[in-house]
């Protein structure tokens, strides 16, 4: 019946073998990561004994920071707030540098994995046909949720045990009215910013992500063996449920994990901004993986129309991200309220200025101008070119979400930052490609497969 056609026309049994050069490459990346990590750990240890000095210079720096910055005005209700902005602005010492870098990379790659799960759910829920041939790639990326949760957990455990001071609110002093470091504003957030809520939501939502990832994957593997639409329809229903969970959880986790680092600061748009960032990073990763596989003779059924559609997604979500970036920035800039502008002062007017502006320009202008043309959306060269730039650009976005919040000034950027990122990239690639090699590159009995293979724009 149908199957006899299947094998004669195109090889649907095509499998990807993870080995050789690619595997070696991921190991090299991991080795670079380990070297950078060791360098960062040494940096942290050598800084440790001089903590008292560092604390002194911290206060000095912050004092300068305050006086030189007329934009931070004292207001009646936020007097204590500005005062504590001072104690919060930490110098980028070795230990902070180690832990912020671990958080940046853990978050960035974990974000890509959950965005893949989200994107796959959209494909199911929207009854999308064209993308069926790409489903295994989404599954593979989302499989990184489990290994990716481990470094994230390590950073959070370290924060909870006060090995690092990324989360200012985790310091019990700021919540204690008798302490000299007591911060009325942060203490007011205690019902949300406490260990129970932080760990409760994190474990619950990440647990749900893992649960859904396993469920989609198991059903999809089963679909290779059994025909019919039952499994697909189950995934359709689960996807609708997952989208609701994701809609709420992504916002809450973005507050807990990222926004709370800038403890005083708040923005209602923040959750969606983070969400669009992980989404575009995930799409970029997807495109690069598809192009790599096609270059190596896999996935003959992925044609230029599929590539163009992925290019359109990359174009569209880049613009969505830029739109959200601008919406948040413009409204805060326009209203110029002290408690809100604190976020942009180190980033846009401080030491991070060029990185911050550069990051936005790369992430907005590169895809907008270079992917406007439909021919470029089909061109492996342009997609790779733009893809690599915005992948790095969004990594830089993650860097700028976290580092300036921890260290308002005196940050260092060296080979360690880049090395650790490459190390994480190696781990990410290792797990994604390993997952990809474990099954067919295409879901054989998906009811939309036929439509997807015959898809032409």
């Amino acid at each position, binding site marked *: *019946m*149908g199957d006899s*056609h*299947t094998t004669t*026309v*195109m090889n649907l049994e095509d499998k990807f073998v993870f080995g050789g050069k690619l595997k070696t490459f991921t190991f090299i990346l991991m080795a670079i990561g380990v070297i950078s990590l060791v360098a960062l750990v040494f940096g942290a240890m050598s800084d440790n004994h001089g903590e008292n000095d560092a604390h002194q210079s911290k206060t000095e720096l912050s004092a300068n920071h305050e006086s030189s910055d007329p934009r931070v005005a004292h207001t009646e*209700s936020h007097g204590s707030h500005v005062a504590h902005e001072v104690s919060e602005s930490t110098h980028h010492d070795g230990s902070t540098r180690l832990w912020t870098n671990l958080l940046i990379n853990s978050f960035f790659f974990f974000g890509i994995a959950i965005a893949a799960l989200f994107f796959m759910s959209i494909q199911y829920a929207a*009854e999308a*046909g064209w993308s069926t041939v790409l489903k295994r790639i989404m599954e593979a990326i989302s499989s990184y949720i489990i290994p990716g949760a481990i470094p994230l957990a390590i950073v959070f455990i370290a924060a909870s045990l006060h090995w690092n001071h990324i989360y200012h609110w985790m310091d019990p002093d700021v919540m204690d009215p008798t302490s000299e470091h007591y911060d*009325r*504003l942060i203490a*007011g*957030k205690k019902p*949300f910013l406490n260990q129970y809520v932080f760990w409760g939501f994190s474990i619950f939502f990440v647990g749900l992500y893992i649960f859904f990832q396993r469920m989609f994957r198991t059903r999809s593997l089963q679909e290779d063996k059994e025909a019919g*639409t039952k499994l*697909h329809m189950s995934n359709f229903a689960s996807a*609708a449920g997952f*989208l*609701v969970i994701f*809609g*709420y959880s992504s*916002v809450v986790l973005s*507050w807990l994990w990222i926004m709370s680092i800038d403890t005083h600061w*708040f*923005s*209602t*748009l*923040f*959750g*969606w901004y983070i969400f669009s960032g992980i989404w575009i990073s995930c799409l970029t990763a997807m495109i690069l993986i598809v192009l790599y596989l096609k270059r190596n003779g896999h996935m003959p059924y992925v044609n230029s129309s599929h590539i163009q559609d992925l290019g*359109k997604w990359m174009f569209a979500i880049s*613009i969505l991200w830029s*739109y*959200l970036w601008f*919406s*948040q920035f*413009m*409204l*805060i800039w*326009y*209203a110029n*309220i002290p*408690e809100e502008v604190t976020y942009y002062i180190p980033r846009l007017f401080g030491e991070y200025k060029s990185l911050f502006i550069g990051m936005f320009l790369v992430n907005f202008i590169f895809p907008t101008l270079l992917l406007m043309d439909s021919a470029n959306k089909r061109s492996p060269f342009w997609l790779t070119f733009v893809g690599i730039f915005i992948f790095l650009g969004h990594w830089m976005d993650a860097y700028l979400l976290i580092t300036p919040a921890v260290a308002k000034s005196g940050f260092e950027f060296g080979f360690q930052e880049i090395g650790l990122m490459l190390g994480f990239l190696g781990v990410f690639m290792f797990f994604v490609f390993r997952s990809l090699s474990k099954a067919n590159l295409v879901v054989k009995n998906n*009811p*939309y*497969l*036929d*439509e997807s*293979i*015959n898809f*032409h724009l």
Partner: protein
Amino acid sequence: MHKESDIRQPLIFGDKSYKQITDDVVKPVFGKANKYWWIVFSLSAIIAVWGVGCIAYTIGTGIGVWGLNSTVGWAWDITNFVWWVGIGHAGTLISAVLLLFRQKWRMAINRSAEAMTIFAVMMAGLFPLMHMGRIWNAHWIMMPFGIFKNQFGTLWVNFNSPLLWDVFAISTYFSVSLVFWYIGLIPDFATIRDRAVKPLQKKIYSILSWGWTGNIKAWVRFEEISLVLAGLATPLVFSVHSIVSMDFATSVIPGWHTTIFPPYFVAGAVFSGFAMVQTLMLTARKVLNLEDYITVKHHEYMNIVIVITGSMVGVAYLSELFIAWYSGVEYETYAFLNRARGPYWWAYLFMMSCNVISPLIFFIKKARRSLIISFIISIVVNIGMWFERFVIIMSTARDYLPSNWDMFHPTFVDIGIFIGTIGIFFTLFLLYARTFPVLALNELKTILKSSGNNYKNGTVINPLIASKPAYANSDDLTKIEGIGPVISGLLNEMGIYTFKQLSLIDPINIKLKLDSQGSRFRTHEPKTWPNQAKMANEQRWDELKKWQDELNGGKAN
């Protein structure tokens, strides 16, 4: 070649042919209106006249006739403005975004949704014009580009004000929507022109259709310009309501200044817009007898869009509420507590229950496929979204200084103008329904062969899949007595691959095909094939075997 999965449901019912589609769509243009049309039209027209009266009274007397006071300087005027602009959102979303996403179901509803956009934006535009007080000076807002540039000093116009950005955003949106709508109408106007008999009618539709001939080059350009306009219109969907939201969000008013406003207003606008499309389409399918084109599946898709955008709005409401507390800013916290527990608590309750809770019913498949529930929820959402804007605007009723606090009481003019715009809107829409092709009939024809029920179930052979599909679930047709490998191939050429298809076909079609292949097939007689195929399809193999034994080479003895 486009292929469609078997699990996709048909979008056109009732055994339509190309001609039948044209007949169905142009019927209201050439036919006489029925009783219901006249009843609804008269009612709308009366309300519209009352609305126009109230508008004239406002312009003649001044906006003091509204219920505004020094605390609530913006009330129903801006509420209605934002509500109408929001409704105007779905039209362009359906035309542009769904076109880019290749959603075929849009073709049954895009024309009317676009018409709705045009009329809704017109209604929206009335409110800022009226609020100017001296409407005869309205052209001043266009001064920077006119001959009067700088005549009124550097303060005029104020480019720092989002209200001015609104003027440009909305007029751009209106122009692009109008062009999009009109370009799509040209081929359909031409179809009406070609059928019109009365000289005046023919003349009007000739002018409107710009000499459209329907040649292939014209169609290529038509499709290109549609995509270009869709590409231009999609950012406009975002820009218009983002800028409307900035009317509030650029201020420093608690409850207004919050960063989520731009995307949240966009989601809310799409939400309310789809609710209005749902209301109009559920009415139109009944009144204009379009049930075959605007099917339950269409309404289900719209309900899905409603539940998604409703959930986005829900996330935004809760984010706002949470951050108001989290920020530790007492004014912000108070603004939200006041919404929920202050004098306008009932409006807040309406907003929350209508917008966040009620659409959740669409997670149940039965509910989103029920036309009655769809209709009720669409009305509920329209009401809820009006209250959402009202709740936001009424934040100002209790500002920083308690001695300023005041309530808003609408006057009969406020009410008259709001109800009046609904009347004008429906009057325009009903006139449109009698004079325009309410479905994009020429575009619908392009999906007939892939999404028409008759083509999908095989009653009509689909030349689109006549070439060999790589992965179709085809049956072994040679199991039918009288069919060998060669004839099986010929049947495949006709698009017949399965027993089910074969069982549905009139054998005369097969006979014609066989005859066309030359004399060696003349002796074959396909009369029993459909019946045999029926048995095979139903897996009645024993019965088939028995019958085949009786048959002589596939021919009945």
